[in-house]
C-alpha cells in the first residue's frame, strides 16, 4: 500500500471539513426564516450536524498539519483561496426548494463517500466517517423526501424544483472528479476512488428525481475548481464575510 504525504492528507481532510463547514453555514442561514417551524428546526439540526462533523475533520487536519492550528483556526482564519469545498456547497440558498435540491445532491454523495470512508485504512478517518454517516442517513432521507414532495407537488413547486435541478446539476460532476490528491488517497486505501462512487450515486439519485417528476439536464458539463482551490465562485467570499466576521473584527475573541 502506498504512503501519502502529510500535505496530501491535510489537503484531503480540508476538503472533507470545508464541504461540511461551508454547507453547514449555508444551511444555518435559514435559521428563523424557513417556511414552517418544523423545517426550520430540521434545517438547524442538519446545519448543526455538519458543523459538528467539521470540528472532527478540521480538528484532525490541524493535528496532521502539526503547526498547532485548531479546527477553529482553520475554519475562521483562512481566506477564500485556501478553502477546498466543492462549488455545490457554497451556492446560495435561493428559495427553500433550491436549498433542498442542493442538500439532496450533496447528501447522496456524502452518504456514499462516508460509507466508503468507514473502511478507510486511516483509523481516525474511519472513526469520523462511522460517526458522521449515521447523521447523514437522516439528512438524505429528509432531503430526498422533500425533493419528491415538492417536485411532484403543485405546478409552482414543480417548476421551482426543475429550475433548481437545472441550476445545480452542473455542480454534481465536481464531486466525482479525481486529482493527484484523490489518487494518492485511493492508492493508500484511505479514501475510495471517487469515480467508483458515481454508479452508487446515480442509483440513488435517479429514481428519486424520477419520482419527483423532474428531468435530469442533458450533458456532462461540470463546474470545477472548488475542491482544488483553483477558483471558487463569487459566493464563497460573501459567505466568509458573514461567517468569519467576528474573528476578523475581534481577533482571538472568546466568550
Amino acid at each position, binding site marked *: 500500500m502506498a504512503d501519502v504525504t502529510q500535505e496530501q492528507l491535510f489537503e484531503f481532510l480540508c476538503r472533507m471539513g470545508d464541504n461540511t463547514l461551508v454547507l453547514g453555514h449555508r444551511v444555518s442561514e435559514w435559521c428563523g426564516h424557513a417556511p414552517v417551524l418544523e423545517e426550520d*428546526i430540521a434545517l438547524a439540526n*442538519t446545519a448543526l450536524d455538519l458543523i459538528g462533523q467539521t470540528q472532527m475533520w478540521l480538528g484532525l487536519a490541524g493535528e496532521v498539519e502539526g503547526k498547532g492550528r485548531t479546527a477553529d483556526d482553520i475554519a475562521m482564519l483562512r481566506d477564500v483561496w485556501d478553502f477546498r469545498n466543492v462549488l455545490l456547497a457554497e451556492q446560495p440558498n435561493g428559495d427553500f426548494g433550491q436549498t433542498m435540491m442542493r442538500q439532496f445532491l450533496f447528501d447522496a454523495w456524502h452518504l456514499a463517500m462516508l460509507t466508503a470512508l468507514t473502511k478507510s485504512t486511516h483509523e481516525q478517518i474511519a472513526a469520523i466517517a462511522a460517526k458522521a454517516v*449515521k447523521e447523514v442517513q437522516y439528512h438524505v*432521507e429528509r432531503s430526498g423526501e422533500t425533493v419528491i414532495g415538492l417536485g411532484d407537488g403543485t405546478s409552482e413547486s414543480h417548476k421551482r424544483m426543475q429550475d433548481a435541478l437545472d441550476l445545480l446539476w452542473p455542480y454534481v460532476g465536481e464531486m466525482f472528479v479525481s486529482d493527484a490528491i484523490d489518487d494518492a488517497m485511493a492508492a493508500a486505501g484511505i479514501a475510495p476512488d471517487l469515480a467508483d462512487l458515481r454508479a452508487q450515486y446515480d442509483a440513488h439519485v435517479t429514481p428519486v428525481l424520477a419520482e419527483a417528476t423532474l428531468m435530469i439536464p442533458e450533458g456532462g458539463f461540470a463546474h470545477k475548481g472548488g475542491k482544488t482551490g483553483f477558483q471558487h465562485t463569487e459566493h464563497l467570499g460573501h459567505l466568509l464575510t458573514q461567517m468569519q466576521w467576528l474573528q476578523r473584527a475581534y481577533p482571538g475573541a472568546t466568550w
Partner: protein
Amino acid sequence: MKPAEAQIWDWLDAVPDPEIPVISVVDLGIVRGVAWEGDTLEVAVTPTYSGCPATSIISLDIETALHDRGIKDVRVKTQISPPWTTDWLSDKGRAKLIDYGIAPPRAAGGPECCPRCKSTNVTRISQFGSTPCKAQWRCADCLEPFDYFKCI
C-alpha cells in the same frame, strides 16, 4: 485512598443529562469508560451527535460532580469510536423517558405508542426535533404532539 470504579459509576449515574434531566449521563450510554491513571481519573465520553451543543456541558458537569466527590484530577476525554448508538440507553433510562413524555427509540424506527395516552395511533411530524437526538410525532387520539428519541 482512590474510590473504586464501581463507586465512580454510581456517582456518574447521578449526573443528569443537561437537555433531558430525568436521565443520567450513564443512562444515556455516553460514558464509555472510567479508569485510574496514576492519580488522574480518566473518563471516556462519546458524543451523541457530532454537533450536539450539550457535549461540552456534559464534560463540565462530569468534572464538577467528581471534583465535588473529592477527586482532584479528572480528565474527560472524547472518544468517537465506536460511535454512540441509542442501543446503549439503559432500561432504567428508557422507563424514565416514557414517564417524562418522550417515547424511547425502537428498532422499528418509530414509537411504540403515545407516551401520554398509550394510543398506538401515532404519526410522524418531522424526523428532526428540539434536540438532535429527537424526532417530532403526534398522537392522533389525544392529539398531543410528543418527542420521540430517534434511533441512531
